[in-house]
């Protein structure tokens, strides 16, 4: 894609450090660098990766798979949570932090076993709020079958919001016969989506913006380990890649899969389930539901011959009741995702650039 032509890769000489293109566009961090879109990707590719070195070779996964000296493999992952408000319909920043890392691990095919939790608390945060958040974390860990085993607490001076940041990290073992990732993806594979999109992001957005007509929206935050293990057990080797559709939404996951796999992806726009309240709120704010964050939905790339069987298994699971097959992997327009519109035309689907910007009219 044209995006890549202007990118410089390679090592950085610390003595003559100059920020490689296109980071030079923004001499300081802007919000979009944390939005999960192009700018985030560039920050990782062109600043962190060259600086850190290392061998992890599959950039499009949220967790890394490491061989254990004693044999076997584990997945390892970390994530930070800064959502405001910290308590929202259907969840809190706490259960989000537990489920988020659990899901990052689960998408590698791992069964998460233990998490660490680090809190950065802002002066003025109410203890009652923190207590509620901690309890929700305990409950979420129990449901996800993980233990919260170690942690850290720091307090920083109060800024505007008197809130908190939670960082979780965790690991889990991966069965020997499981290998998931964009490299396993091949033309002809089917694309499975585990349920309706946009609920988490729009629940938060509606609360922030006071959209009363969308007040029934709740976060879809859920641990997906069980669902993933069900899929893997249905037809060994049939599931080729899994991603949870968090920041950047369904569209970002597809774009990353297409780029990572070097294949094209196509899907039917009308096959993607969008709850009416999500569609209304998005239309009102000028957002695209496929770019909105989910916290309990996954996208699976599944061998065509087993797709129906895997779909059936997913639908039998409580977190996958409304799952659908939305499209397929194709051997054209490599690295690019194409949506077939309701009217029968085709359009390119791109990563959101940075944070989503509401339209003005």
């Amino acid at each position, binding site marked *: 894609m044209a*995006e890549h032509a202007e990118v410089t890769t390679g090592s950085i000489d610390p003595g003559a450090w100059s920020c490689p293109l296109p980071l030079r566009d923004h001499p300081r961090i802007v919000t979009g660098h944390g939005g999960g879109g192009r700018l985030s990707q560039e920050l990782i590719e062109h600043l962190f990766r060259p600086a850190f070195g290392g061998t992890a070779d599959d950039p499009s996964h949220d967790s890394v798979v490491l061989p254990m000296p004693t044999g076997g493999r584990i997945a390892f992952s970390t994530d930070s949570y800064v959502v405001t408000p910290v308590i929202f319909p259907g969840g809190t920043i706490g259960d989000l932090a537990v489920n988020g890392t659990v899901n990052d691990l689960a998408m590698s095919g791992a069964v998460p076993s233990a998490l660490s939790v680090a809190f950065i608390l802002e002066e003025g945060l109410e203890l009652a709020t923190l207590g509620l958040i901690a309890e929700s974390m305990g409950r979420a860990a129990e449901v996800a079958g993980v233990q919260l085993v170690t942690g850290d607490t720091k307090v920083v001076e109060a800024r505007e919001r008197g809130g908190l940041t939670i960082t979780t990290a965790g690991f889990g073992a991966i069965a020997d016969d499981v290998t998931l990732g964009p490299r396993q993806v091949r033309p002809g594979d089917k694309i499975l989506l585990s349920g309706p999109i946009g609920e988490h992001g729009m629940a938060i957005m509606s609360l922030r913006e006071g959209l009363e007509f969308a007040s029934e929206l709740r976060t879809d935050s859920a641990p997906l380990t069980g669902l993933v293990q069900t899929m893997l057990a249905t037809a060994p080797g049939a599931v080729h890649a899994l991603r949870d559709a968090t920041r950047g939404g369904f569209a970002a996951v597809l774009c990353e899969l297409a780029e990572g796999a070097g294949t094209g992806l196509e899907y039917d726009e009308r096959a993607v389930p969008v709850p009416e309240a999500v569609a*209304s709120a998005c239309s009102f704010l000028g957002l695209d539901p496929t770019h909105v964050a989910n916290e309990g939905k996954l996208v699976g790339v599944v061998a065509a011959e087993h797709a129906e069987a895997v779909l059936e298994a997913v639908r039998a699971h409580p977190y996958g009741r409304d799952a659908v097959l939305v499209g397929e992997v194709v051997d054209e327009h490599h690295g690019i995702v194409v949506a077939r519109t309701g009217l029968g035309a*085709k359009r390119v689907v791109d990563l959101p*650039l940075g944070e989503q*910007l509401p339209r003005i009219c």
Partner: protein
Amino acid sequence: MRYLDEFNDPALARRQFDAIAELVTRPWALMEVCGGQTHSIVRNGIDQLLPDQVRLIHGPGCPVCVTPLETIDKALAIAARDDTIFCSFGDMLRVPGSHDDLFRIRSNGGDVRVVYSPLDAVRIAEEHPDKQVVFFGIGFETTAPANAMTVVEARRRSLTNFSMLVSHVLVPPAIAAIASSPDSLVDAYLAAGHVCTVMGTEQYDPLVERFGVPIVVTGFEPLDVLEGIRRALVQLEDGRAELENAYPRAVARTGNAAAQKVLAEVFEVCDRAWRGIGVIPQSGWRLSEAYRDLDAEYRFEVSDLHVEESPLCRSGEVLQGRIRPNQCEQFGTTCTPRRPLGATMVSSEGACAAYYQYRRLDVVQEV
């Protein structure tokens, strides 16, 4: 809120495409005036599915795109002040000024906030009496009533630390400017539905009469757009030029009287520069004499601006329908949504951004 799916029904759309294919006997060029319509057309692929003889020309109706560079630079200068909280709709944050954009002002420590309603800026002004709070009031007639109400509300609450940087633009003078151009290619216009919800349709009668072109008031969902296109083509094929309302569920002939009343009180018509196009006489609104004390243009001395447009950007030609976005040499190479040369590559309603986002494949294949 219903009526999203209903106006996106593939079977009904197919019937409309068939009806259009049947009635067209020769080439016609229609201009959709509003950027919201451009977005809907390109996103849904409506232009790909129309008969080859029907050409859609994308009009100048993206308020973000036409806000003059000098105004953007003024906004940036105000937003960079230590004593100021600058409030804007999200679209404006990435629009390039001569040297910066609001995102960068923010990352350099400027207090720039995205609001969804201009009234949020009034609330912020109340919460921060020690700061100057400025709202960037841009847009067509559609967004103007909310901005006008905000100014009235700030006055009612006697807020001395609130002001608005106003750069409103008006649709009818823009249509007149395009239609009077000797090399105009446009056979008929799809007028912007939501502008007419506020202003009514009476302003368009003189344009139909003066230029002898059909004008069809049109909505935004795919079936709305198709109905507007079909009605314009029926008129053209019949040799008629009339004003028609194809969006009656949202537009009444007289518009919204309450909104028009407050608009008349708060704003006065002025000449306005349109980015990429130039000055169009009597094509903008500024705050009226009675509200001048709330006008950020007067409150802040902004001088020493070095306004500098990219010499490579051809957005003016795009906005006037002279070229398609992908006919610009910079499209998708030196100019992308991440590094836009002009505002048409920034806003989701900008024609260049819509082409880049949804049509990159065609462009890749053409190259």
